[in-house]
């Protein structure tokens, strides 16, 4: 057991030596792996931030009927009756022009400029939600309501939300695809790095075999090397992403204030970070194992 531990400790130390010496190729590999990981991670974060955003901004499809500003109470009641009878309408809420103004003043932080208007420019409105499982009902209602008396304008919201949701889905799939592709690239990078290492250490490997080293013994430092290279690349990737997120947030801070309540582009969570480093380390190990398995065979006695 202690011998096993000592063997692994030595292999780890060997691997660290090989990473440090020479340093430049290691640094280059780490940067290549880091950028390969940063790309899908950024895409994944973008998708997640968009999803959060669309969750915060009400994504329930709703139809808003804006009434003519000169509509009388009877005319308004007529519209309300038509809505109450309509099969596509689930809930109907009446928003007076005063409520709409107050809402605008508080939610969008436009208080001062609204007061400057002098008089309320907003109309009364009905806000209608559709029945569940009937996505086209509200569209039919919109087309019909547009011709009702005193309905100035019928607007179906949340189309943008659906588009956003679709974008998020595409973004997630793209991130996954990109991650798989770049995972292969990462494996290839370690594979090749280890291949070069093995070629550079032919004499040592050959001699090790002659003095009774097992394959596991010879393999181990290379595997640790791949593992550390992958993990290093993972950390580099996280660093690049953190830098990108910080830069983005500085650029966005003004714009996000306008949207209200949106806290900015969030970076990778601890679990994301751990997953990235873990997966990168695993792929590094895998690439090394493939390479060592393939290239050590030529040292067998004939």
């Amino acid at each position, binding site marked *: 057991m202690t*011998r096993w531990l*000592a*063997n692994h400790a*030595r292999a780890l130390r060997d691997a660290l030596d090989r990473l440090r010496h020479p340093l430049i190729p290691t640094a280059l590999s780490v940067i290549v792996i880091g950028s390969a990981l940063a790309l899908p991670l950024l895409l994944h974060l973008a998708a997640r931030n968009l999803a959060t955003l669309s969750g915060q901004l009400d994504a329930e499809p709703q139809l808003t009927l804006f009434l003519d500003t000169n509509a009388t109470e009877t005319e308004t009641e007529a519209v309300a009756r038509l809505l109450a009878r309509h099969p596509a309408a689930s809930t109907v809420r009446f928003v007076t022009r005063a409520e709409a103004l107050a809402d605008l003043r508080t939610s969008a932080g436009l208080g001062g400029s609204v007061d400057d208007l002098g008089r309320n420019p907003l109309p009364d409105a009905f806000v209608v939600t559709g029945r569940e499982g009937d996505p086209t009902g509200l569209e039919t209602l919109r087309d019909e309501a547009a011709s009702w008396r005193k309905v100035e304008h019928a607007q179906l919201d949340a189309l943008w939300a659906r588009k956003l949701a679709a974008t998020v889905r595409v973004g997630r799939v793209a991130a996954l695809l990109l991650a798989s592709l770049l995972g292969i690239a990462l494996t290839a990078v370690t594979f090749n790095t280890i291949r070069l290492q093995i070629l550079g250490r032919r*004499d*040592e490997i*050959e*001699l*090790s*075999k*002659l*003095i*009774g*080293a*097992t*394959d596991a*013994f010879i393999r181990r430092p290379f595997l640790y090397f791949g593992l550390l290279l992958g993990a290093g690349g993972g950390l580099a990737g996280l660093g690049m992403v953190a830098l990108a997120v910080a830069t983005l947030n500085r650029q966005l801070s003004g714009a996000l204030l306008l949207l209200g309540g949106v806290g900015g582009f969030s970076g990778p969570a601890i679990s994301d970070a751990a997953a990235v480093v873990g997966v990168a380390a695993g792929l590094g190990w895998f690439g090394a194992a493939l390479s060592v398995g393939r290239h050590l065979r030529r040292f*067998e*006695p*004939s």
Partner: protein
Amino acid sequence: MITIDHVSKRYPGGRDALRQVSFTVAKGEMVLLTGHSGAGKTTLLRLVAAIERPTAGTITVGGQNVSRMGNRGIPYLRRNFGLVFQDHKLLHDRSVFENVVLPLRVTGFTAREAASRVRAALDKVGLLARERDNPVTLSGGERQRVCIARAIVHRPAILLADEPTGNLDADNARNIVALLDVFRQVGATILVATHDAEAFSAAAPRVITLSAGAFVA
């Protein structure tokens, strides 16, 4: 300890390096393999260490059939050997100490135990003062002695030495022969390939002569 039984070796390309060679080496015995250049001495040592496999015949070491041994068993077989190579096979990217310590690393010695054994081995070949030097800075004879230190550092049961005195002057050669003889006296089995049987006369070994791959005496 070592049995060579009707062993033949034909390298790819059709040259017969060994033809029907048979002899045995007892435990604690020193045997000298002599013969002209190309007679097959190195080939025979490589067969015993399972670096090559015989084309025909059987080699056993300590009762184990080496010629049929699977690849998995070979590393453990080799740990019983100390190998002195005709071309030294020292690694030039590390110090003398780091070269000699390699067989101990393979078998997982602690750093402290390894260090004291390496120094003892270097002391025996008279190179303790050079432990930090790179082998590139050593003379041919000094490299040879480093190679011998590496071969004995793990106190192997069997020493297979290919031209261990090849690059040495008479004094150093005598020292190495004396060292090998001390080894033999504490129970090691020693098989030496050499042109220079004369240098070993002090140890009074049994001499086997090969000619063009065949046993002649």
